[in-house]
């Protein structure tokens, strides 16, 4: 049915590797679906979904909302700011703009913990030790990468289409809204998704920025819960982990084809 050029031992080895790779999940699911979980690697003793119900209600539910607000907010702000700047960047002649963008990307490669000190101080002064502060900071940190990606996508929109529209009397606004944006939809989706998952997974910033438990996103909540000594509610934590991991995993598989295109765009443009 398919052109399989793999030898049998090789295929078996690869299959085994995949099995080893997913094996840690056995424990996760075994406990999450066990109403009487004790954190051991067991078949569920009392199969049920009580843990999941706990993981989406009360405090846990609020953390989910916090994470969602931070992630969607960051992704939307950085994509919007990115688009506004990336189109002019792509179309205007500016000496050394690629060098500039790459320098910024490299600058962004510095440890987040490194700029954290000044960011923390500035946010404290500005009264931004809250979710808005987290979103703005993440946008600042994301922006070089967002700009580079979006500019690369806008570069691939054929200029001839814009010319034709201009000749037909379209304004800049119409050109951008009706030609450029629709044609770079895949790219924009990728950028939005990258920022979304980045912010959804972010741990360090909210750890330092969230002063009160009510503001914790799921990453900090999970860390706080499993770092706690004594009675750890494994059933709840495993279910909580699954709920926390699900959106990023789910959206990826929904957008898989776009992702790979976007990915090729990131990889090797130098």
């Amino acid at each position, binding site marked *: 049915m398919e052109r399989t050029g793999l030898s049998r031992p090789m295929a078996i080895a690869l299959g085994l590797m995949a099995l080893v790779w997913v094996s840690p999940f*056995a424990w996760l699911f075994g406990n999450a679906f066990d109403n009487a979980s004790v954190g051991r690697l067991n078949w569920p003793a009392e199969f049920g979904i009580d843990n999941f119900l706990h993981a989406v209600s009360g405090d846990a539910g609020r953390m989910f909302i916090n994470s969602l607000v931070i992630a969607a907010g960051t992704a939307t702000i950085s994509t919007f700011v990115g688009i506004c700047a990336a189109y002019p960047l792509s179309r205007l002649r500016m000496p050394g703009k690629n060098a500039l963008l790459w320098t910024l990307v490299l600058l962004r490669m510095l440890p987040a913990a490194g700029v954290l000190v000044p960011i923390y101080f500035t946010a404290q002064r500005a009264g931004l030790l809250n979710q808005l502060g987290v979103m703005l900071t993440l946008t600042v940190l994301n922006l070089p990468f967002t700009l580079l990606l979006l500019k690369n996508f806008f570069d691939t929109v054929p200029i001839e289409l814009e010319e034709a529209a201009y000749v037909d009397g379209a304004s800049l606004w119409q050109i951008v809204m009706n030609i450029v944006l629709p044609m770079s939809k895949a790219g924009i989706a990728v950028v939005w998704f990258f920022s979304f998952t980045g912010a959804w997974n972010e741990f360090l910033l909210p750890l330092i920025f969230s002063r009160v438990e009510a503001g914790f996103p799921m990453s900090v909540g999970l860390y706080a819960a499993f770092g706690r000594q004594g009675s750890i509610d494994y059933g709840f934590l495993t279910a909580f982990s699954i709920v926390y991991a699900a959106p990023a995993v789910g959206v990826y598989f929904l957008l898989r084809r776009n992702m790979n295109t976007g990915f090729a765009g990131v990889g090797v443009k130098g």
Partner: protein
Amino acid sequence: MRHQANPWITSNLWLLSAAMLPAIILIGALLYFTGWAFTFSFTDLGLTGRKAVEWSWVGFDNYERLFTRRGGFVDSFWTTVTFVFFSAIVGQSLLGFLLASALRQTYGTLRTVVEVAIMLGWLLPDIVAAFLWSATTSQTGLINSLLIVPFGLKPVNFINDFALPVVTIANIWKGTAWSYLLFVAALDSVPREVIEAAKIDGATRFQRMWMVVLPMIRPHIATNMLFITIWTFTYFPLIFAMTGGGPGKATETLAVFLYNQAFGRGNLGFGAAISVAMLIIVGLLSTVYLRMLKEPK
């Protein structure tokens, strides 16, 4: 360049500049923060208490401390190098490449299964991965239950006794997908005819890989190295959540060291010096890789 004469651009220069303004401000903030870190690395600024308000200039004291303190920066640097070398370069990059070249020959179910398996690790939030691996390597965890106890051995507390290897493996598990995807794209860019030609000329499998494919995908290798080295070098959440840098200082990589100094002990000035030192190291690494990217032999 070719776009310069486009009238819908040139007649709207002001509007386009205004659109770029928010981005310029935010980039300005990024530059400001970097400059700030540099400046305050010469002070004794503290997180709380008197030093938070009445800080003073201390010259190069913080930088001196980087090299004179035992169990400080230098040890942490070597821990980081070990971690990066084994988890990023040997683990993720080599494994990703081997997988990409093995799965290249097939498009079947097996490929999908392997891809989904390694992608799951990549997509999982850092903290969930940390939780999962803490559990897997615990005394009642998967490894002990399946591989140690059934052979009549005593359960091993991996996270305590083999902390650095455990976080290294966890990071390989988590990050291989990126290298894999990049190498898949790289190998797809090598024309099949070239490989066929080498085959006809009698090149062995190994020669084809070593002398034909690898030189052709050199830019991809350099890009991949650049990204994963720097990411791993500054990677924080997984290690911090699994071990907090311990036991002792066994897994205190530079990112964790920086956090512990700046926010754990409240030495913001010293923390800033650590981040400047990290920035310099990252900068040097990038130059090496970018050179690899630009100048073919």
